[in-house]
């Protein structure tokens, strides 16, 4: 009996092994058919003053736009990479690893190029050697030197010292500019937090507990709005005091202090719940954004913005 059951489960496992690949194959055939028949995923461009711009398929129907091979490939690559990342939800696999590696590599390369062209060229080389940079690299820059241009040697030297850590000897030289960065960052951030998150928050909490609001026409007090504003002010006051009590460890949390502390915990829990709710909303919005890209831009199964003739959109 036991061996019979084992045989049946082995047979079932053998069959189910083919279910996933068969489904994937069917989906691939369907997508290929849609691409061949409807041209789904195609991006159309029309000439404009500032170079070709993406337009709707209606412009192509009217004969003023044509398919862009580069942008179409972009949509297909984006769609396939999205699916590769989603595949991790099933289980870890080489396609996911490939998409992850592409993302990391492209990001690093992009950062380097952007930093070079947006900072090193205009803000360092352009200040030290403006005529050279203006003539050869960035024509928009002024070829004139500023009065105190030589100060820009300081960041140049600090930058070179920072790169010294790549050298086999004298890595300690990089510690000096790093110390400068840490000190300056800590100082800048301290002032920001002190002002916005400490002093101004104290100011924002010290408000009248009873609020009287006037009606829009200035005739008398709006009691409903006043009641709402007063409840809000009292909630804020009680909430802040109770939360602070919870984090006040110099006194044992018993009696009145204990009750205030417990209320503080409730306030904190409600805050965490609200934050969690917001996070869920955010994550679902991201999923919806990605699915809309797949269903609309790539597969043309939906067309919420009416960018294509109706018979181009749909399952068949």
């Amino acid at each position: 009996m036991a061996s019979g059951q084992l045989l049946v489960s082995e047979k079932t496992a053998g069959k189910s092994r083919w279910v996933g690949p068969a489904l994937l194959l069917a989906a691939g055939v369907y997508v290929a058919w849609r691409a061949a028949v409807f041209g789904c995923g195609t991006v159309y461009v029309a000439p404009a003053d500032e170079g070709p711009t993406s337009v709707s398929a209606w412009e192509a129907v009217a004969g003023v736009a044509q398919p862009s091979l580069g942008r179409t490939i972009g949509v297909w690559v984006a769609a396939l990479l999205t699916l590769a990342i989603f595949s991790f939800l099933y289980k870890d696999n080489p396609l996911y690893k490939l998409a992850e590696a592409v993302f990391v590599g492209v990001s690093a390369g992009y950062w380097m190029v952007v930093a070079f062209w947006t900072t090193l060229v205009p803000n360092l080389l352009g200040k030290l050697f403006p005529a050279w940079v203006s003539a050869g690299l960035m024509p928009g820059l002024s070829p004139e030197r500023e009065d105190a241009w030589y100060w820009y040697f300081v960041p140049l030297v600090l930058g070179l010292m920072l790169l010294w850590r790549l050298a086999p000897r004298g890595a300690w030289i990089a510690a000096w500019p790093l110390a400068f960065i840490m000190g300056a960052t800590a100082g800048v951030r301290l002032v920001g937090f002190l002002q916005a998150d400490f002093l101004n928050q104290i100011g924002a909490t010290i408000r009248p507990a009873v609020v009287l609001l006037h009606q829009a026409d200035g005739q008398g007090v709006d009691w409903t709005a006043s009641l709402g504003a007063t409840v809000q002010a009292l909630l804020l006051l009680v909430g802040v005091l109770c939360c602070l009590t919870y984090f006040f460890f110099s006194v044992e949390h018993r009696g009145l202090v204990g009750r205030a502390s417990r209320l503080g915990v409730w306030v904190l829990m409600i805050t965490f719940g609200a934050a969690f709710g917001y996070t869920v909303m955010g994550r679902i919005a991201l999923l919806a954004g990605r699915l809309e890209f797949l269903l609309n831009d790539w597969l043309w199964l939906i067309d919420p913005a009416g960018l294509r003739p109706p018979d181009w959109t749909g399952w068949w």
Partner: protein
Amino acid sequence: MLEKLQHLDRRWVFLMMLLAVAVPMLADWQVPEKSTLLVRQTFEAIDRLPEGSKILLSWDWDPSAEGELGPMANAFVRHCCQKKHKMVFIALWPVGQQLIDDTIEKLIQADYPHLVYGRDYVNLGFKPGNEGVIKVLLTDLRQLYTTDARGTNIEKIPVMRGLNTVRDFDLVVSVSAGYPGIKEWVQYASAAYPNQVRLITGTTGVSAPLLYPYIPDQLQGMLGAIKGAAEYEQLLLEKYPPTHGEEVGKYQEALRRMGPQLAAHLLMIGLIVLGNILYFASRRKQS
């Protein structure tokens, strides 16, 4: 049954979530939106400014937050275009520059072709330095931005005339996905110059709860996550109805995502309730 549900493969939950979002999307299921006070205040911050006001739009996000922030960014820009405000775009995130180009191409050039680059709007691009960029912008914008993103000298761009610091702008709008973003704008711009820098933001669901303490003194308006974006789109569509059909769908991105959002939230609530029932049932069974 109890045993089976307790050991349910989590991939079934993923599949259910996928269907909860995809099915309403395929069925074009939408829910009506009513604006809340905070969203109305954010809307008014742009709407009450006189025509031609100068607005700094800081694109502090990247494509990973497109699902949430893309609709907000489009709504802010469309609002500015409708009000004929002058727009100066910057980015504190490196990919922000490409997102600005995308907004300019798909929105401004497509639907507001009468607006001229350099005269009505400009893309100053990305600068690395996080909050350091904001600090410099507060004292001398031209020290950091010597050219726009296309390499044109900033002195030759008409829209930049008279704009030397952040304080010269009538409003700063930060579409923010994290660090550096709206928190840094509050800490270094609005806190330092409380009566001179007015700030509003559109931000992700993760960031939104942390920003409420800054409202209304240090932050004059906020759109929190896709819900805030949907309410803003509704206000915008009511006050400035699109002139042709294509635009209606284009500017309802957030509104049409609220249907899938509702279905997914109902699923989440159902799963949380089910999880609790299973927990108490298994405890009862054990005792």
